[in-house]
């Protein structure tokens, strides 16, 4: 679905990532770890087409990123749900409207999707907060709203950047269960995190592969952590 071949990425002068190869196959569950500033977020951005590699090849659903127009990238985003570390919303719209935003920008009929939307709101436990504005939400609620927004289009891939960064352990367990459930529904999941406890918790429920960024290279971490 998403393939990186010998990808390098440089900011200004220094090289942040080099010779990174990765293939996210359908239904796989990956964790991405590494120290802060090692390039986890950059790697995710390469995966959803926000950045173009300095060298090497990135393919989104078979398309070469370099050959894609801005609108091609937009179309690919509809198949990739992204949860950011700092979830950004349209602060003047209600939580429900924010979660439905991917539907409205892709021209779907909102009335038709209404039952799905309601079900999804219940699934992430935001039914009570449906009419709240994003600034009124707690950290955990924001993360769950971001996850709901990422999956409303029923994407093939979900990329999450530190989805449990701002929430307590109990909430992070809930988010993880949501992501595992999505993976069981056949979605490809990639979670960037430095929370090793989270990875261990996931391993009890699902087969995962752990990737580690060290010294600008991507390595497959051993089965045991």
């Amino acid at each position, binding site marked *: 679905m998403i393939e990186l071949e010998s990808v390098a990425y440089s900011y200004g002068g220094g090289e942040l990532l080099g010779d990174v190869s990765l293939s996210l196959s359908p239904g796989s569950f990956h964790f991405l770890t590494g120290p802060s500033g090692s390039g986890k977020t950059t790697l995710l951005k390469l995966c959803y087409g*926000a*950045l173009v590699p300095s060298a090497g090849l990135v393919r989104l659903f078979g398309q070469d990123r370099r050959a894609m127009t*801005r*609108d091609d990238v*937009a*179309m*690919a*985003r*509809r198949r990739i749900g*992204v949860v*950011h570390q700092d979830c*950004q*919303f*349209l*602060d*003047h*719209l209600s939580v429900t*409207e924010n979660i439905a*935003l*991917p539907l*409205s*920008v*892709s021209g779907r009929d*909102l009335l038709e999707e209404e039952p799905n939307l309601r079900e999804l709101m219940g699934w992430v436990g935001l039914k009570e907060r449906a009419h709240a504005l994003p600034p009124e939400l707690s950290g955990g609620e924001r993360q769950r709203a971001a996850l709901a*927004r990422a999956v409303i*289009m029923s994407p093939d891939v979900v990329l999450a950047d530190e989805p449990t960064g701002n929430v307590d352990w109990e909430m992070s367990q809930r988010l993880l269960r949501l992501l595992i459930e999505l993976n069981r529904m056949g979605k490809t999941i990639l979670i960037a995190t430095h929370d090793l406890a989270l990875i261990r918790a996931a391993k009890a429920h699902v087969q995962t592969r752990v990737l580690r960024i060290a010294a600008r290279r991507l390595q497959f971490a051993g089965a045991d952590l």
Partner: protein
Amino acid sequence: MKLDLNATRAMLAGDAQADRVVPPTGFTARLTLFSAGAMAFLAVFALALSLATGRLADRWGNELARTATVRISAPMAQMEAQTAAALRVLETTTGVARARALSDAEQAALLEPWFGPGLPVDQLPIPRLIEVIETEAGFDPEGLRLRLAAEVPGAVLDDHTRWRQPLVRAAERLRLLGLVALGLIAAATAAMITLAAQAALAANTQVITVLRLVGAQDGYIARAFVRRFASRGLAGAAAGTVLGCLAILGLPSAQIEGGFLTGLGFQGWHWLWPLTIPPLAGLVAFAATLAAARRTLEEMP
């Protein structure tokens, strides 16, 4: 008919949904409305100036071009004979529709504004005037002058060209100035809307980032901004146009001897021209915002 209504309502509802992704901004919205309105107000006057000077140029160009005067200065005794001779010459000249000697009473009326009533015209050696009305094709003034010189020594032909042409030129230049002013107003409107749109786009970077993240294409994002500014441009210009037209209506009406200033305004179907200002302003706002949005979006990841 019912179907059409429903389709229209659905389209409007869809637009409303898309428009909501851009947060409402009270202050810049009012500024945009105000500038569009002020520009439309000025545009009404520039348009009125162009049309009025256009009318003036046409009138001076056409009506005055159709008439000429032959003046006969001769001793009292020969006056009758020379007038008759001149009329004979004029009647046989191609391009002259009618020629008529003014009566004493008419000449007295013409002189009255200068010399006051009761002027003993018949006792003064006042030249006789012959009014010449041309046909569509007109006559050849040089040929006529030569023939008059040969047969009526006291006749002088005045075809008005000498003083008419500078006036027509001046009126045409004024019309050109009015059109240039209209062009400048359109360009200034475009510049102001571009600045306002640019500011709105810069203020809404987060909105654009979020929309990009959830898979919005550039066209969708641009449209959300463009519709907003085009509608503001349209609404502001509509208000400005109405006020401008009211101001034109409020001008003192033109008198018969009125100069061109009091003739400033619209006549007949020319009143339709100001109606084109709001849609044009909307169009200018549309194009300016679209260009600004495309530029801004190209620069964003």
